[in-house]
């Protein structure tokens, strides 16, 4: 595996374009979480966040386990959630808020892949279920939005992360590791169930 690329938010357009499918990266800086309910809330009215820099920032598909402390919050578990559910909305979200990276798991579809290319962004795969390893990369919870409206797992958490590890699985050049694996496994599957090109048989 090639060396890990270190990224700091907000990402520059060049840094994004330099990333290729299969690159391992580590992100440092501010990121925000958002999943199903938040995406719905966003596309309904595009709330503005004048005090946050979302352009060039990174959106994390995550519904964490959070504990309220005397002086704030602590993240007890914070791995990625399945991204494909946001497929209908993500292209518009990228266009509107200008996120340069989407962290999640499982990959996304053609509409998002096209948006990544058009607006200059990447999809970053975090390891699903690695909630403890990843929670430790969150050094501080800077704040939270929409907590009352949509609850802990769905709220928009503003997080400061350090060396948060991901794999670029969809880049800004139209390449997707998910498509690649799907294609190669499809060929094997067809062969295993005796469909078409059984070749050797």
């Amino acid at each position, binding site marked *: 595996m090639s060396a890990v690329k270190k990224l700091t938010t907000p990402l520059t357009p060049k840094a994004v374009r330099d990333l290729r499918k*299969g690159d391992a990266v580590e992100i440092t800086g501010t990121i925000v979480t958002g999943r199903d309910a938040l995406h719905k809330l966003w596309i309904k009215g595009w709330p503005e966040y004048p005090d946050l820099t979302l352009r060039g920032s990174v959106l994390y598909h995550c519904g964490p*386990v959070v504990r309220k402390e005397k002086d704030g919050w602590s993240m*007890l578990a914070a791995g990625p959630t399945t991204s494909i559910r946001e497929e209908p909305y993500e292209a518009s979200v990228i266009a509107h808020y200008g996120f340069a990276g989407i962290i999640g798991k499982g990959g996304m579809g053609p509409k998002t892949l096209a948006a990544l290319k058009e607006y200059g962004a990447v999809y970053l795969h975090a390891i699903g279920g690695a*909630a*403890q390893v990843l*929670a430790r990369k969150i050094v501080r919870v800077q704040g939270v939005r929409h907590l009352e409206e949509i609850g802990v*797992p769905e709220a928009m958490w503003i997080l400061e992360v350090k060396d948060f590890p991901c794999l670029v699985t969809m880049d800004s050049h139209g390449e997707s*590791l998910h498509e690649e*694996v799907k294609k190669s496994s499809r060929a094997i599957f067809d062969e*295993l169930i005796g469909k078409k090109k059984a070749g050797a048989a």
Partner: protein
Amino acid sequence: MAKPKRPTPKPARKAPPSKKQKPAARQAVKQPPRPKKAPKAAAKQAAKKTAPKRPADPFGEKALTQVFTELLRRAATSIPPDVLVALEKAREREEPGSVARDTFDVLIENTRLAKQDSRPICQDTGMPFFEVAIPRGISIGAIERAAVEATRQATKTGFLRPNSVDTLTNKNPGDGAGRGMPIVHVHEGKGKGLSVQLILKGGGSENVGTQSALPNVDLGADRDIDGVKKVVLEAIFNAQGKGCAPGVIGFCFGGDRANGYNEAKKQLFRKLDDTNPDPTIAAMEAELLEKGNLLGIGPMGYGGKTTLLGVKGSYLARLPACYFVSVTYMCWATRRAAVEVLPSGKTVYSQ
């Protein structure tokens, strides 16, 4: 035995008043053995006051609430040993320096951290599914209430995420309980004790489960064992890495739709290294495991040699007109735990 780092959850705030419950017999139950330092004198006195002969009701709602809460904590925070072994073996199979191998390193490290700090392995602590075998004459209501209350307590203490959403209002009540959640199945067992099996099944993996009806023309799948295997393999292919591969497959052929899914899910209680006593099903399991791994989907769908950690199957009788194949997918974070509560009140936990 691993002890929780953080204080064991306090006993329930008063359980919702249940009129059927006899206060004297049920409420002053002796604490189960875990929270060690209960003030002894007080406990003794309480026991003296209320339960002259029988020391306590180990199968009552209050005692079971505590046992179930601890069971939830264990399932959420500690990976079963057989699953860990499977992850370690999978790691060895991947090329040094490959993304797949690095991924297994992270998964294994994650389980270590979770256990060490008694924190959830994954933030999606899933849908609790309790399968309870009870001795004759025990109150089923008490068990159901205990499971709900335990889910609330484990949520309050952060071992479970507030994971229940009211589907009608889309509101999250925040306490982990809701209509049909947790799932509690109770049946009469053979022994004198009460035995509980629990899995926590996350949403990402639940989403990639499938149910189909045979025959399936596209796959060339007839109503026979070969057809079943084709459909299960297709489900594995379609899941790709989305259910947090490598996964464990539970499948069932036959049954009606509802029981088919349920039977498939119950396969997830089995240990990965067990052998199905039915040789036909055992052969199906082995073949599907091998073929599933040949797909090369790998951990997280990054590509790699291990796509599955296990395949477990079963079947049910069917109507002549129906032939369902139900497939459930459990993520690599296969969280399960069991406990046996003996009539003496002694509890034996296992994973």
